[in-house]
């Protein structure tokens, strides 16, 4: 029996291996970035073929849209050619090759001799069975989350604390980025005041500018749609936020960052919005605990006095706290990444000025 998705899966994985080799071996960094973007397109086909639609929705913007522009920014700010490797890494290459061959042989052997059971599994683990059968079960509602989307329900209800600490890591990474580039806004503010009258020549050609404005609107609509329907259809806060970031990024590349700053994307405002989003997530998680339930409680549980968030309001299905979490998380993720890209797009000469000022 040949399944269509598995043909594509095998093809894309083989291609991925070849492209990874090319990425590692090219010396021109721009070529490496293009090859790795192509490689991530094939990865997303593979993810699509194993039916992980939520992962595809978050992987597509992150890998195809954001990684490449981050690396191009970095290459433009630094250097675009790798210096040749002097000497040889024969020992490392040998160790890696032997390790890879050993692991592959081990896996082939264990699949062939049946150690891993029926490896393309026809059953799933008991925990996954539990989640799928309880997530929208009206007939035994002790463990239900009232959300038909099992993945978003797992992210924000069954494993809520895990997600909360992941968001803490995200917060820490963004604070670290901003701390590395601190004091720059003092110098860059003066330039921004001059740039009230924008020169027309900034950005790409007129055709590109016009189309990018339309695509910006479309991307925003799709992102909001993914975020606020996250509890009913594939999607959620992380996906919506990551999708939204592509829009400002497109404007920044096609129409210059000064345009983006003029339409209202400013550092202070974005920091404020991101903090509000994070505080709102913490509040929504803590309110049940203050009212007698436990942290991250969503629906009514027989052993907890808190009555739970309502599954629907006025005939609109919102799945309790999951809708709120999705919206606030999308705001936090989108504004956090926009902030980083605004800081990243400040021209290099101002940093040089800043480094000269310091002793």
């Amino acid at each position: 029996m040949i399944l269509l998705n598995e043909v594509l899966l095998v093809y894309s994985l083989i291609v991925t291996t070849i492209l990874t080799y090319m990425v590692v071996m090219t010396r021109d960094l721009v070529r490496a970035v293009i090859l790795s973007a192509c490689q991530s397109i094939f990865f997303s086909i593979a993810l699509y073929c194993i039916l992980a639609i939520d992962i595809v929705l978050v992987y597509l913007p992150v890998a195809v849209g954001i990684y490449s522009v981050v690396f191009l920014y970095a290459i433009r700010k630094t250097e675009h050619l790798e210096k040749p490797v002097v000497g040889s890494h024969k020992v490392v290459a040998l160790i890696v090759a032997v390790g890879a061959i050993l692991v592959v042989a081990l896996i082939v052997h264990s699949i062939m001799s049946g150690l891993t059971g029926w490896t393309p599994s026809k059953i799933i683990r008991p925990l996954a069975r539990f989640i799928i059968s309880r997530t929208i079960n009206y007939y035994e509602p002790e463990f239900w989350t009232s959300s038909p989307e099992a993945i978003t329900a797992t992210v924000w209800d069954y494993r809520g604390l895990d997600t909360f600490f992941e968001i803490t890591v995200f917060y820490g990474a963004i604070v670290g980025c901003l701390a590395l580039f601190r004091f720059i806004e003092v110098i860059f503010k003066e330039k921004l005041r001059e740039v009230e009258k924008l020169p027309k020549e900034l950005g790409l050609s007129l055709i590109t500018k016009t189309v990018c404005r339309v695509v910006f609107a479309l991307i925003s609509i799709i992102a909001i749609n993914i975020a606020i329907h996250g509890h009913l259809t594939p999607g959620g806060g992380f996906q919506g936020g990551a999708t939204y970031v592509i829009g400002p990024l497109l404007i920044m590349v096609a129409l210059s960052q000064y345009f983006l700053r003029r339409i209202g994307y400013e550092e202070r405002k974005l920091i404020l919005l991101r903090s509000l989003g994070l505080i709102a997530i913490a509040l929504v998680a803590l309110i049940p605990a203050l009212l007698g339930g436990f942290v991250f409680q969503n629906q009514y549980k027989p052993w907890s006095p808190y009555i739970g968030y309502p599954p629907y309001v006025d005939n609109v299905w919102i799945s309790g706290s999951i809708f709120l979490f999705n919206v606030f998380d999308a705001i936090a993720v989108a504004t956090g990444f926009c902030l980083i890209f605004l800081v990243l797009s400040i021209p290099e000469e101002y940093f040089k000025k800043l480094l000269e000022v310091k002793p």
Partner: protein
Amino acid sequence: MSSMVLELNYVLFFIGITLTTIGAIFDVIASIGLLRFPEFYVRLHAATIGSIGGAVVPIIGVAILALSCTFLGPQRFFIFGCSIVIAMIIFFVAPVGSHAIARAAYRSRTVVPKYVVHDELRRVRG
């Protein structure tokens, strides 16, 4: 009445299959062109065939095909609408990508045109 609907399904099905097949053939032709043409500005033609003929036409084919697939239930109208919108987006957006990269390649002198007979653009820009 029901036989009418059934026959309409067959008509839609064959239209969809035809469009998808045309798209597949176009895509093979475009890829051969992209591989065999001698220079970047010549390869642009092949790449545009690959995006419009090789993606827009078969996606419209998939949309019409989805309408005829009664085993999908009411979901087929959703797939139809989304595919049409996707085809329109690609139709709208793919030429912009080619335009931007060609303009950048010309203006930054990354690729110097070899097979050019008369370069009006250079005369204008100086």
